[in-house]
């Protein structure tokens, strides 16, 4: 009996290493995370049999930094915003990626030619171009055609939703005050520029509802809690199409930003993680993800392959931030500027926020 027990335990120990390999991918969750699941994770799992463990976080940069500093990394791939990526890459918390191994586009372009400006770094490969836009309920509010309307409480009464961060809010205030996108970061870098942005925000301060998670603006609009709100365009699109909410997007002066995949230093499955990133950022996959959420692909070659939304009816091309008709007047978030000035401007912003 004892011999049987020992033999069966030994056999179990032999069986354990034979389990399938798996990698952990951390992202922002919500509708965006679901689109990644459909476009990248499921095809990859079907193709290779490697299990992908999807984890969500409000901002994957925080757990990533904590894990790398503690020396106990469980994440293999993380989805980051460019400002966090630049900061963490300079601190040596991310692996430098062998970008030359990235696949060519169908028309033979290398990664240097195919990825849009700001869509690829030595520590990260971009997946999507998203933008922060102003959304409103098309049935209740009519006649919104410029971002100055966001600050016009008489013509459009009601509360406004803004992200509770200096980034994306200060730029909106300055553009609504008349600053051209090309000059914006020069103006915002001066104390007078910061004062000007805060003064503009003061005009609507009592009516602002502050949001932190990407899922909050569509909820606020649906509840009727706000008349207009800034939001990530993909979340609004999903509410419009999947939940048939009568929302409309104001593309004027949209603020563009990217999301990129990175590998933390000390990731347990570094090679498998890199294989996944190469797959997820190839031309077809980036075009596929545009079929699940209205974020633009970072590869120029993907635009031609973008087709219908998963509902089989909606043409995606005109809903993407990178569509030509939306690009006029748009602002690309400056990573270098925020890496330098985030702390100072956030302090001013937090102090302004806390004051009554």
């Amino acid at each position: 009996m004892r011999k049987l027990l020992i033999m069966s335990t030994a056999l179990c120990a032999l069986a354990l290493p034979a389990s399938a390999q798996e990698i952990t991918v951390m992202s922002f969750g919500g509708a965006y995370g679901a689109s990644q699941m459909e476009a990248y994770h499921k095809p990859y799992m079907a193709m290779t049999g490697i299990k992908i463990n999807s984890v969500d976080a409000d901002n994957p940069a925080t757990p990533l930094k904590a894990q790398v500093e503690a020396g106990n990394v469980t994440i293999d791939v993380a989805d980051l915003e460019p400002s966090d990526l630049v900061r963490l890459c300079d601190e040596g918390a991310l692996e430098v990626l062998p970008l030359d191994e990235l696949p060519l586009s169908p028309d033979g372009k290398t990664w240097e030619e195919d990825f849009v400006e700001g869509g690829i770094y030595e520590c990260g490969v971009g997946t999507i171009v998203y933008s922060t836009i102003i959304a409103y309920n098309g049935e209740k509010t009519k006649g919104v055609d410029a971002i100055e309307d966001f600050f016009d409480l008489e013509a459009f009464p009601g509360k406004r939703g803004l992200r509770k961060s200096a980034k994306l809010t200060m730029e909106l205030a300055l553009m609504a005050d008349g600053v051209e996108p090309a000059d914006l970061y020069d103006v915002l870098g001066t104390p007078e520029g910061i004062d000007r942005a805060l003064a503009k925000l003061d005009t609507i301060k009592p009516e602002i509802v502050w949001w932190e998670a990407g899922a909050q603006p569509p909820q606020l609009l649906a509840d009727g809690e706000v008349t207009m709100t800034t939001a990530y365009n993909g979340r609004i699109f999903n509410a419009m199409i999947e939940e048939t909410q009568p929302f409309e997007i104001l593309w004027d002066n949209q603020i563009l930003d990217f999301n990129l995949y990175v590998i933390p230093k000390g990731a347990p499955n570094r090679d498998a993680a890199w294989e996944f990133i190469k797959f997820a950022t190839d031309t077809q996959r980036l075009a596929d993800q545009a079929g699940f959420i209205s974020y633009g692909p970072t590869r120029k070659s993907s635009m031609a392959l973008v087709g219908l939304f998963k509902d089989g009816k909606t043409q995606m091309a005109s809903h993407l931030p990178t569509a030509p008709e939306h690009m006029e007047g748009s602002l690309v978030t400056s990573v270098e500027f925020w890496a330098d000035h985030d702390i100072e401007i956030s302090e001013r912003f937090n102090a302004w926020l806390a004051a009554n």
Partner: protein
Amino acid sequence: MAATTGGRLLKAAVTRAQGGARRRAFLLVLPLLAFVFFSFVLPIGQMLHRSIHNPAFAANMPQISAWFRDNPVGTVPGEAAYAALVADITAAAKARTIGVVGTRVNYELSGTRSLFTSAGRRAARLEPPYAESLPALDAEWASPQLWSAMRNVSTAYTADFYLAAVDMTRATDGSIVSVPADRKIYVEIFQRTLLLSLLITVVCLLLGFPVAHLLASLPMRYSNLLMIFVLLPFWTSLLVRTTAWIAILQGQGVINSTLVALGIISDSERLSLVYNQTGTIVAMTHILLPFMVLPLYSVMRTINPAYVRAARSLGASSWTAFRRIYLPQTLPGIGAGSLLVFILAVGYYITPALVGGASGQLISNLIAFHMQNSLNWSLAAALAAILLGVVLLLYWLYDRLVGIDNMKLG
């Protein structure tokens, strides 16, 4: 002297026996003590250590840090200083630590992060005299503010984060000055946190006392049934309870829609009950109420109703009997409940984050901001340490005034 049958002194024998009992007791508690030490004291101690220790500059730029040590405040940097600086920047750029160094200086002086990273890219090609070639890259390298900022960060152990946490900073000559008025946040938020927590404690007391009294007065089987209603919220997720309050309190929510339907307020004058301090107070009172009811209930259960009846029979009015006989006996329970609710309220994060808007933010939300958004963990640790200190101070005050031994949980 007393002696035992074995001839030893009685006192010595008793001490030995007690020592043995104490050792056994200690060994029994040892696993729990070890667990609390490794899972609580050590990590929190390490975190608090961060609030005074930030070696990002000092460890990665040794030569210029040594120059700062050897030369007092006010020394104009000469060729030796610049040479040390360039050597350090070159080495840091090669070791990929220049970003960390730049970020550390950026906390002191905004805009300097890119100064360091761009200098790092070009430092290897600089020629002496460095006092001219480095400022030639960027004039900022010769500014006294930059040198003052570098001097401040050149020591690994620093009190600067605590200064920042109370809205102070160091001027170029090294003296401590207040931060400009438009950058002051923390002191006001600390005050707001303490005042709101006090208010929530008082409201919880006013609402919880009658409930506890009812539960304590009813026969056991009824009060057990009603106790389930008090405990039911604990079985519901905290997030669900908080978002339920958003649905009830918001502009188009249950309360406002009911009032408009009844004609009490008009549609355009809907009450603003959430995303401000009102929302924070209401939601936090709801969540912390059981913590007030339970200690009160345990104490009230032990109060003999005969005393109040005796007072009434001796001619006391209902109010006098309550004030002079019943209330003093419940004081230990009030003390326990209030302390519990206050300490929980002071550290609460989730509820103010969801329903507080801008004016209902508490200090824990700012600590979370520095942990998650600005990734300035040293400042977050300093704020947390101050919060811990304030709570310990209040606890000590409470002990002096009321006495911890007078506190009963039942």
